[in-house]
């Protein structure tokens, strides 16, 4: 039964190709309920693809992916079931530029969950408060700073009340001084809400603080996993060590 399953996400021997390019090679990854997993690795290592496979933005060709006990298959029902459990935050925010912040937040609840406008707006206000920008509700995304936009994007996915949140390099497109306002919100979600999270990021300070499990990927494979203290203190593989040296050098 799904509710007895302690695993939020289960990936078994997942393979994926983009044409001839073998982008994921035998990925095995288990994420427990309430667990925070941080994935890092050089660009092109497949870390974004792993996350995008979890909510079927990419289709894997081999292996099994289960989310909250439901196996991802080609049928609409399993995809819809999984998408209603999984929220996603993108590197480029992907807010809808023609809608106000409020409309960005209420669109999902109103159209896919048939919530009425008043309820949806109350819900949206709650999450805008949560990401600390309730005063921006009537603005268009283009009028906000990058950090504010990303916080709106987080609020938008929270409005669907997901059990799992995926973050695909959420701070990579931000100016340095805006990174912390986004990370603060994410730390809050992890610590106060116990949200299950997979975060692809190079923010190692954030990783140390919230990660339960670190994952290092290289060339489509998971090279190393472990709790942050071990992962940072004593990396087992040469590749992981050089990578960490590179990004922690400065």
């Amino acid at each position: 039964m799904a509710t007895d399953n302690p695993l939020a996400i289960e990936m078994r021997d997942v393979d994926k190709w983009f044409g001839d390019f073998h982008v994921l090679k035998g990925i095995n990854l288990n994420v427990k309920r309430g667990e925070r997993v941080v994935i890092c690795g050089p660009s092109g290592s497949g870390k974004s693809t792993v996350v995008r496979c979890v909510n079927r933005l990419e289709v894997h060709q081999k292996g099994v992916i289960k989310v909250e006990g439901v196996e991802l298959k080609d049928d609409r029902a399993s995809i819809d079931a999984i998408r209603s459990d999984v929220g996603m935050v993108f590197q480029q925010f992907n807010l809808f530029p023609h809608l106000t912040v409020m409309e960005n937040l209420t669109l999902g609840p109103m159209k896919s969950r048939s919530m009425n406008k008043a309820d949806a707006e109350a819900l949206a206000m709650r999450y805008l408060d949560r990401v600390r920008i309730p005063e921006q509700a009537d603005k268009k995304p283009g009028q906000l700073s990058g950090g504010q936009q990303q916080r709106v994007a987080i609020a938008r996915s929270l409005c669907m009340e997901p059990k799992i949140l995926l973050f695909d390099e959420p701070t990579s497109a931000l100016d340095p001084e805006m990174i912390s306002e986004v990370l603060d919100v994410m730390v809050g979600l992890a610590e106060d809400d116990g949200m299950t999270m997979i975060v692809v990021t190079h923010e190692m300070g954030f990783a140390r603080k919230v990660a339960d499990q670190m994952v290092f990927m290289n060339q489509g494979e998971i090279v190393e996993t472990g709790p942050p203290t071990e992962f940072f203190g004593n990396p087992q593989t040469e590749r992981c060590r050089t990578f960490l040296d590179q990004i922690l050098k400065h």
Partner: protein
Amino acid sequence: MTSENRLTRFMIVLAGCLVLSACSSNSEWGWYVVNPLLEGGRVNLWFLIAGYPSTIYISAIAAALSMTVGLGVAVMGMSTWRVFRIINRIYVEFIRSIPLLPLLFWIYFGLPFLIRGTWFEFNVDPFWAGVITLALSDSAFTAEIYRSGIQSIAKGQSEAAQTIGLTKWQTMRYVVLPQAIRRILPPLANQFIYIVKMSAFVSVIGMQELMRRANDLNTNEYRALEIYTVLILEYLVLVLLISAAVRWLERRMADGEVR
């Protein structure tokens, strides 16, 4: 008032002044045929202007049809089903390569034989032959305009829409189309202007629009230069008005949009 609007007005006024001044001064020209100060000129001028309703009517219906058919063809072109994409390709390439006049003749003179005795049979008069021809030939272009406009919206937009649970149709309706329409509108307006101008071809099968009336008047008066000058000005005024309307619409849609 914007500078473009001022320019439009200026051009219309200038065109009018040219005609009027030429009416009174130059004896080489025979402006009397269309001189609004003379009884005969007024009658002729009115005869020419009375072609407007037909030209506008035929263009508007053809444009509406073309935009509808074009949307359907564009949707097929973006389908995940290969067979629809192939139909789209064949339609666009085929229609796009037929010149307007042969298509018009084929439909006016040929189509009646093809549909005789079928449930689809109808009276192919010059008006409907013109509408069908203009709409068909234009729809291949509008289809491509829709498709490029829709595909120009970043993939991340529909991905984000999917992750908040919207269906494919809802994603189109609430996320992609409202953004695409702003990019589609200007080229679509160009196509409408194109239709207005191409509607002159329908005169050859006897449709009494601007062009045909100018031809008819010329056979009586033998004043080609003056009559066709007025005809060109008639099209100019119509097209300038359409562009002004489109600019107004674009401005209205862009209101509050910050990117």
